[in-house]
């Protein structure tokens, strides 16, 4: 019984983490699902968001301004990846890796050479938006949920506009997009900037939630984000085509991911296995559609025979 209660105690924290990573996953969704680009910039830009926000707040700046600057920094990072990809013709994956590496230096410079900068509510009073303390967990959950809803509504609106449509078309069919007069280089850069802006926002929240910015905090972020996107899509697949609801499913995916994660830790799995676990889960889910089409192809062939 006590064990059950202890386990229940870990859940609000897991949901809170799920919400922050849900925002990150929404950012990833824009590149991975909408633009059809696997963007590795995010491992760097999430840290950039955390670093910019933390440094500004510890220097006494307003938290909202700090988060806004984090978003802008993330957008610049995404834009750089986009320009490397479209102007220099570097494959998107490689362009993302290059930016990510550059961001490592940038982040260290922003953090003044330190690998870790503390940012706790206790120390800075009301200077942060969400708290790392367990006592304020329900306030934190409320604020995070509100942020998620605002982001989802904003993106829902944006992808319903002419510009948003042109981004979706770019990810869907490049030939058609160009034939319809869409500057696909522009839409790709725009989408990458937008995506990394959202990811950096998640980074700024992550720093507040953890109570620190850490130079290594973005390592493997793309895998966690992908896991959220994949879990969200898999669990709620085909229920709706409404974009806003799909984004909410992605956030649910992130929450489920962290609930499972917390439970596995609670059950005593040593934490060094966790990244292995995440990557394996993502690998399996990414591989499933391929395996399905291979099996599906075989099915079709036999169908063809019976028809003939």
């Amino acid at each position, binding site marked *: 019984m006590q064990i059950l209660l202890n386990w229940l105690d870990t859940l609000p924290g897991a949901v809170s983490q799920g919400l922050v990573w849900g925002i990150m996953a929404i950012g990833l969704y824009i590149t991975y699902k909408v633009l059809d680009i696997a963007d590795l910039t995010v491992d760097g830009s999430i840290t950039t968001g955390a670093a910019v926000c933390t440094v500004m707040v510890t220097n006494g700046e307003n938290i909202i301004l700090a988060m806004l600057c984090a978003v802008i920094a993330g957008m610049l990072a995404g834009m750089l990846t986009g320009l490397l990809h479209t102007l220099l013709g570097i494959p998107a994956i490689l362009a993302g890796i290059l930016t990510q590496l550059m961001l490592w230096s940038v982040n260290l410079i922003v953090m003044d050479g330190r690998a870790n900068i503390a940012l706790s509510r206790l120390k800075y009073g009301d200077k942060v938006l969400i708290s790392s303390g367990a006592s304020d967990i329900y306030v934190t959950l409320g604020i995070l949920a509100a942020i998620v809803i605002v982001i989802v509504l904003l993106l829902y609106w*944006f992808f319903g*506009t*002419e510009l948003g449509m042109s981004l979706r078309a770019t990810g869907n069919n490049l030939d058609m997009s160009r034939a319809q*007069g869409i500057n696909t280089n522009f839409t790709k850069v725009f989408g990458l900037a937008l995506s990394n802006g959202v990811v950096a926002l998640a980074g700024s929240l992550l720093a507040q939630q953890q109570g620190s910015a850490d130079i290594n905090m973005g390592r493997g972020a793309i895998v966690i984000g992908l896991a959220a996107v994949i879990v969200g899509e898999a669990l709620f697949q085909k229920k709706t085509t409404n974009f806003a609801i799909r984004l909410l499913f992605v956030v649910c995916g992130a929450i489920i991911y962290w609930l499972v994660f917390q439970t596995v830790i609670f059950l005593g799995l040593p934490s060094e296995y966790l990244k292995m676990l995440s990557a394996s889960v993502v690998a399996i889910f990414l591989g499933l559609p391929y395996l399905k089409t291979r099996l599906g192809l075989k099915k079709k062939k036999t169908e063809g025979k019976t028809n003939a």
Partner: protein
Amino acid sequence: MLEIKNISKTFNSGTINEKKVLSNVSLTLEDGDFVTVIGGNGAGKSTILNLVAGVYPVDEGKIIIDGNDVTKLPEHKRAAFIGRVFQDPRMGTASDMWVEENMSIADSRGHRRGVRWAITSKDRERFREQLKLLDLGLENRLTTKMGLLSGGQRQAITLLMATLKRPKLLLLDEHTAALDPKTAAKVLEITDRLVKENSLTALMVTHNMKDAIAYGNRLIMMNAGKVILDVRGEEKKNLTIEALLEMFTKASGAEFASDRALLS
């Protein structure tokens, strides 16, 4: 309306795969010309259309649309003047987007796409009216994913999309080749109607000699990167497949090489 002046194109130039596809091709289309284009496989028909559309740049020569020199313009900028339909029905539309979303994207062709809400109820009504004219029952499927429609339905919608914003030039590259004969006939009929109603200037590549004779006011035949025949008006109306084949042999000094063209 369209002036193609001495264009040349060589693919993979300087490599072992070098392929000279067009050399010094010139062609002028008058306003309202509906030109059908025939020719053997690899004659360079698609290459000409792609060069006009800006899919890749010309090596030499000029392309002028309605007085605008577009030779240096990128593909997406030329799209302001050009409507296109491709051979592959999947190529002309976004499969994961709805019918009305695809049409809305076409509706914005030629103007800057801003943060205006893309589909108003007025737009939707207009799209519905247009779809109704196709007579394929698509007016009730505005929120169907494009990918769920048949090849013929997709080509018909792509045609609508290409002409929704009246283009100065309509480029059709074997746009019925992937369809079954009945659907192909229907899509051709829609093509003809749209071209006439909007008095469009059009270039239509086809592998079907009968269609090439039946549609349009002018016919050109290509072989090995050259225009070897250009007939219009009465002379075109009186063409027969036999006469075309004979002209091909005379002009090119070879038998018409495409089995597909003979069969249809």
